């Protein structure tokens, strides 16, 4: 079989060129890069133990990925012990079907931001199956209305200036929304507040999972995850297996390193959810669904991750905390944003595309647009050797070894 990649390269090059001429992207990323560098250097000065903690986290991640099967079993047991229901999804389709099996049709779903959700095209799938789904992260909400894909993993609508936000909001809400950021935030707050309390299901991801306790740790700033996972009667966590670590203490370390390099300094909220809401206040009889969800489900998703874990040359890519720091340091990303990506972005994104989200042919043009300059490695708290992995992928592409 012959796979002709020539057209894909041409199409991709045109897309990159167009992106590099987009002044919105240029302005937004330039601002974001300088703010990222300043904040991170300030907070690293304030919390000087961070680089050492990051090294410790590298060890935790290495150990976890080497014992993935074992951790997964423990995690599922913990969830069940906590009166939640645990599922394992081998691939993309299984993950979607399990979620749909829990949710059903004709429901209202509120969703927190999740890269796994993007990887699975979760919202689109649930909508196609007759559900009303709302992205509650402001950036994702904007993109949902604009029918666009994220341009950064943490700031998905980084490329959309306030004027364009006002435009799409005015149209959607059927009233004049001024190009004023506070006003824009306010209309979404009002709109989604009603959704949280009428939704049937809340879906979130998790930044890290402690398998000993079954604790799902979710870092956020907006407060949308608290509401989306707290108000509806059902909470579903969908999480990639690379997020598993042995202990609660490990999870705290991973979380702190994640938010520090994600420019949060100190995040507004760290949610830790381990099971359904419960009370024993009346006669010490445990009753579920006190104030929060009565039902709690966790879907652990593999979808190519265990293949990566098995390969010496690529298992380190699973250590990625999704802090997004590498993207700010990437000269290609700085001028093209999420166009240098397919779900996952930047050099690390090209690797994830090959294994998890799209496959080698989708990854090929991305793999060749990486400069292999190595500045991402300098920034990465996990020191992921992206250039070496890109080199390895190129070899596989050239000789069709995939």
């Amino acid at each position, binding site marked *: 079989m012959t796979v002709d*990649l020539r057209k894909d390269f041409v199409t991709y090059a045109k897309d990159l060129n167009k992106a590099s001429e987009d002044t919105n992207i240029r302005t937004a990323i330039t601002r974001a890069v300088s703010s990222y560098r300043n904040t991170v250097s300030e907070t690293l000065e304030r919390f000087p133990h961070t680089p050492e903690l990051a090294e410790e986290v590298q060890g935790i991640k290495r150990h976890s990925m080497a014992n993935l099967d074992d951790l997964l079993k423990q995690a599922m047991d913990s969830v069940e012990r906590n009166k939640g229901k645990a599922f394992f999804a081998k691939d993309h389709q299984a993950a979607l079907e399990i979620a749909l099996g829990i949710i059903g049709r004709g429901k209202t779903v509120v969703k927190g931001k999740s890269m796994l959700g993007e990887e699975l095209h979760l919202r689109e799938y649930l909508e196609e199956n007759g559900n009303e789904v709302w992205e509650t992260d402001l950036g994702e909400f904007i993109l949902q209305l604009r029918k666009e894909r994220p341009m950064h993993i943490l700031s998905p609508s980084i490329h959309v200036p306030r004027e364009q936000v006002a435009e799409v909001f005015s149209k959607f809400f059927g009233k004049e929304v001024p190009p004023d950021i506070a006003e824009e935030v306010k209309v979404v707050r009002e709109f989604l507040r009603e959704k949280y309390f009428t939704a049937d299901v809340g879906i979130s991801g998790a930044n890290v999972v402690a398998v000993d306790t079954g604790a799902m740790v979710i870092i956020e700033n907006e407060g949308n995850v608290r509401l989306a996972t707290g108000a509806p009667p059902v909470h579903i966590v969908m999480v990639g297996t690379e997020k598993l670590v042995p202990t609660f203490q490990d999870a705290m370390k991973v979380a702190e390193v994640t938010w520090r390099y994600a420019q949060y300094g100190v995040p507004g909220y760290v949610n830790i959810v381990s099971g359904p809401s419960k009370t024993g206040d009346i006669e010490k009889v445990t009753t579920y669904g006190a104030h929060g969800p009565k039902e709690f489900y966790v879907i652990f998703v593999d979808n190519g991750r265990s293949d990566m874990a098995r390969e010496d040359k690529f298992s380190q890519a699973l250590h990625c905390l999704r802090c997004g720091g590498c993207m700010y340091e990437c000269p290609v990303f700085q001028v093209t944003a999420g166009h240098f990506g397919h779900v996952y972005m930047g050099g690390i994104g090209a690797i994830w595309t090959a294994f998890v989200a799209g496959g080698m042919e989708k990854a090929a043009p991305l793999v060749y647009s990486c400069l292999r300059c*190595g500045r991402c490695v300098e920034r990465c708290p996990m020191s992921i050797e992206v250039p070496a992995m890109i080199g390895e992928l190129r070899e596989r592409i050239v000789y069709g070894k995939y």
Partner: protein
Amino acid sequence: METKMPMVLDIISENIIKHGNPLALKGSEVASWAKELDLPVKGELLFYTGGEYQLLPFIDSLVKTITHLDQGSKVFSMMMGARNILNKTGLNAEKMYASVLAKDKDRYNSVCLKAAKVLHGLGYEFCYSGNEELYSGALLYELGYLEDMKNYVQKVVEVIRNSGAKTIVCLSPHAAEVFKFIYPKMVKGFDLEIVTFVDLVWQRRDQLAKIEASGAVVIHDSCRLARELGIHQELRDILENVGADVKESPRNREWTSCCGGPIKILFPELSHVIGSRRVNELKESGAEHILTSCPYCLSALEGGRTKGDSAIIEDLIEFLYRGSKA
């Protein structure tokens, strides 16, 4: 499974494998700079150019061809096909590039001569493989053609071993990188000491003459040199010894910004955008005189300079040569 890669990759990899040079330049063309020096072919220290500075003006022509033609178009396929045929029949590839400016060709060709003179001036004696010298194959490594590289490097090593050298001094950090990290994995008993031009100059920096520069200089650290080879303080030490006023750009040393060069052949426009952003970043240092120590950085930054920009972009070799002439 077989994959069809963009044609420009096929051409470059085939040229390296068959002609020992990414653009199929002839050995005599690549070595023409050395005529006046009459260097020995055997010695302890091997001077290695890899033809990399010499091919820069031709790369730009290739890139211009790519930029102006849609790579998916029939015309482009025909041109690239024609080129391939020319190479296969052994005709001069450079005849395809009539647009190469003589002054560019002279400039880049003379970088090697200047490097040799600077090293001679510091008392180094070395040999050179002349017409026989082969390109290191760094691009095969860079672009993923590792299976082919395994065979190719055996030929390169044969030429190197013929020199009897124990140490190789590389002008390009890309060559140094593959000799140091990749060759030992591919060639049994490859244990030559690998140094860069910068290393050798740095070792005898006390002997450097002062250089009269018109203003401050700023260093563009090459990614390979700064991150893979860990060489960045050495550049500053050297410049301090020649009395240059060195300014620093906001992103330097191991945090240096890539020049965009590595994606030039596949994504020329984007590479250009990245190159010009880097030129501006370097100018934020307050210096307009940019020095680098890598052929691809030199070419990419030159390409990224906007028309009418007063910035001067030079290789460290060119800068140091001013001192050795005096």
